């Protein structure tokens, strides 16, 4: 492989605070309403931004994720955004997104977000059924979600995403269809639709293991999956990644940086960055991060790691991947080895390769059974 350096295409800022931790969440975040701590944290992020050297494209995307970025005091948020702009990380972003919990926004906050330059907002709605929201520990209800979306529209957000989850405890096909219908009636630009994954170490996992909560059965979630693909297409949402749907031209440009396996930079406790060769991650501890915001844990990727990640990230997109792209970036021709690895997957109809266009992509069946293909690359 030829070692060359890449420019940063996306900037991620992690806000690891939440009002309350949801039962299924395994992201790094802490339940806190300590304004003082949050402001200290914001200063630490500024410090990290200031001291970080990187070659950034002028159109690099911006993404504030969490945790709950909308819980951050507006002062803190302003300081971070100003610092990003001052240091050249925020120039003319193709997209600037902020994640919000529907239970933590109001008109004033949303107006500030717009003024700061955020043009896209993402709400963690998860469901429009209150019993489902309650059992997974969300702090908001369905009405909050509707209100939040209305406010976002009112302050001028044109690009609004909603996250929904299927395979929730208590959920059935009807209630899931209801959530999707509610979503469609809002006429938003983007939907992230995840099936619930029981992650180790989460409260939900413990409760399921102890029999306190019952998860819906495998067949039900597969039925939901089958139904929703047709439904969304009928309503003008095109699937462009395994779990993401958008109206034409409304795809998340920031998340595409990840799926295109392009370099990105991460600021904040527990935030991950990637320069094309090495992945680094800030400490997952708010106190320690405030003390030394520059401390990162590095993971040097081997050539095999890079190849497998390049493949399974790129293949998540409906458009698939050009195999020559790898040679352009890393100098190695992978066409033959890739086709050898996946010949059985091609036979099984999970993946298809158009050699004229040089496009390898998952079939519709492969989109449901992606891990069978991805595992060929590790």
């Amino acid at each position: 492989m030829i070692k060359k350096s890449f420019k940063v295409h996306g900037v991620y800022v992690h806000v690891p605070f939440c009002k309350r931790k949801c039962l299924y969440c395994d992201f790094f975040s802490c339940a806190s309403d300590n304004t003082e701590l949050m402001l200290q944290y914001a200063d630490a992020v500024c410090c990290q931004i200031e001291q970080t050297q990187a070659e950034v494209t002028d159109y690099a995307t911006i993404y504030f994720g969490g945790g709950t970025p909308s819980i951050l005091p507006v002062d803190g948020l302003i300081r971070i955004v100003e610092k990003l702009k001052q240091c050249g990380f925020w120039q003319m972003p193709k997209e600037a997104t902020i994640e919000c919990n529907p239970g933590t926004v109001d008109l004033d906050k949303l107006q500030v977000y717009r003024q700061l330059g955020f043009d896209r907002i993402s709400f963690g709605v998860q469901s429009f059924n209150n019993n489902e929201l309650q059992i997974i520990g969300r702090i908001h209800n369905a009405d909050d979600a509707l209100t939040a979306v209305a406010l976002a529209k009112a302050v001028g957000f044109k690009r609004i995403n909603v996250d929904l989850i299927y395979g929730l405890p208590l959920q059935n096909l009807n209630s899931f269809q209801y959530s999707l219908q509610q979503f469609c009636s809002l006429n938003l630009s983007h939907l992230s639709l995840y099936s619930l994954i029981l992650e180790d170490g989460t409260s939900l996992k413990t409760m399921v293991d102890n029999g306190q909560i019952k998860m819906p059965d495998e067949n039900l979630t597969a039925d939901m999956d089958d139904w929703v693909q047709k439904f969304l297409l009928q309503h003008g949402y095109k699937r462009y990644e395994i779990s993401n749907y958008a109206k034409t031209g409304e795809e998340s440009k920031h998340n595409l940086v990840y799926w295109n396996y392009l370099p990105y930079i991460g600021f904040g406790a527990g935030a991950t960055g990637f320069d094309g060769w090495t992945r680094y991650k800030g400490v997952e501890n708010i106190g320690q991060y405030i003390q030394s915001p520059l401390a990162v844990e590095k993971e040097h990727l081997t050539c095999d790691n890079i190849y497998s990640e390049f493949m399974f990230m790129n293949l998540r997109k409906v458009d698939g991947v050009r195999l020559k792209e790898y040679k352009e970036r890393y100098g190695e021709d992978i066409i033959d080895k890739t086709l050898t690895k996946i010949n059985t997957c091609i036979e099984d109809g999970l993946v298809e390769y158009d050699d004229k266009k040089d496009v390898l992509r998952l079939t519709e069946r492969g989109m449901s059974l992606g891990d069978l293909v991805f595992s060929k690359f590790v």
Partner: protein
Amino acid sequence: MEQSHIRNFSIIAHIDHGKSTLADRLIEMTGTLSKREMQEQILDSMDLEKERGITIKAQAVRSIYKARDGEEYMLNFIDTPGHVDFNYEVSRALAACEGALLVIDATQGIEAQTLANVYLALDNDLEIIPVINKIDLPSADPEKVKKEIEEVIGIDASDAVLCSAKTGEGIEDVLEAIVKCVPPPKGSENTSLKALVFDSKFDAYKGVMLYIRLFDGVIRPGMKIRMMATGAVFDVTEVGVFKPNIINVNELRAGQVGFFAASIKTVKEARVGDTVTDAENPTDKPLAGYRKATPMVFCGLYPVENAEYDNLRDALEKLQLNDASLVFEPETSVALGFGFRCGFLGLLHMDVIKERLGREYNLNLITTAPNVVYEVFYTNGDVNLIENPCLFPDPNVIDHVEEPFVNATIIVPKDYVGPVMELSQEKRGIYDNMTYLDENRVMLHYSLPLAEIIYDYFDRLKSMTKGYASLDYELSGYKDTNLVKVDILLNGEQVDALCAIVHKESAQRRGRALVERLRSLIPRQQFQIPVQAAIGSKIIAREDVAALRKDVLAKCYGGDISRKRKLLEKQKEGKKRMKQVGTVELPQEAFMAILQMDK
């Protein structure tokens, strides 16, 4: 030391009644090892033995004890494997002694294994000293145990020694009882060498070390000796004792216990139970009781990766150096490729070998379900022993089939007698008799097919009696039986390694249970997999493993990539443990499914 000051003894006990702890305490008390050198249960030297709390190989430790009479005595303690699989080894170890400590848990009383071992000891004319252990426990009832010993075994228990191996209480009394009650050996040092091999151990430098008890004569380095059963002749290179570390000595004399090495390459050349004599001046008659250990339980062992076949063979050969009762020969399975059919003394022996292959030789193996050896009588008059269920012949050519039966002793609290009898009946047991040990406990005798014991008899016995039942058995011989072969088909293809020989009457039920079990064990795959059981061409049961509908990680963003990659790597690692059979990936447990059908 004079023979009058030598005591050769063994300890017999049911599992968990405290044999190893008592042995540790005796060694500690005689100062054979300093406190610093002591580590818990030093005699069980294999990791596996420690973990399972069992003894697999016999050990022999010499210690010197200064008794209350002021004299010093040489105590040779021969530790025996306690498990029924190793009954023959136990009997040889006992044959090397003059006395045995019968250790019984003061809270539990006599168990089936205690009895079996006591009978072995009585067969060998040993002086038996009852030792009631764990008297420190609040629920200890030594008087009740004494009464049981007298009534059930029929030996005087009035002088039974009470002790707690855990606290050390009464240990000196145990040592005194050994000196006082165990008769000294009475062989002649001046006649030709006559020694019993009661165990052996392979050492990479010395070759096979034979553990011996000298009855007559002397053995020293430089002597030419002959193994009377195998006829092999060797030059003795080294003679020594265990304290319990190896100490070389100039000679071993009549009545003593120790080891010798003679550049013997494999344990096959010098088997347990054989008699060692002077090659130039042999004794006229070997010691009684030699027999070759015969494997009772067989299974197929296959490497998951075919490339590991040679490593598996090397590992089996190495284990065989130390274990004459392990037999194996190459076999081929359509489903599993090249492997070995291995014979074992019993299930524990099989488990131990399997675990050692995995642990010590790092082999990733598939084991087929264990089976017994069937004796098939053909219509044309031929007789054949079938060790592999796949090779069970077509019913048309069979005149009749015989299978091994055991005499089983079961001890249970009286409330469980009904269920145990029902279970034994279901398992084709033939009732023999029943005795009350006391007002609460009952001893049952049944004749049972060994195949049923291997299958799930013991597990079900344990669970239906909440663990109170104890079981012991010995092979009684072959009996006429009515068996059929049940084949398993996956995706319409017969999988030879999954077939099973079952009794005709239960074939339908077992076939059904087996496909249900397989359906739950086989992970969903891309396509639906029919699982069928068949007798001949007739399908008797079918279940389908539904096709996998969804297998993809929903979320994957910048922070998840490494984790996701590691997850995929882990899944791949897990897949490596699966065996591809035709188009189906089978987990290793599938090949043992027949053993776990009723769980």
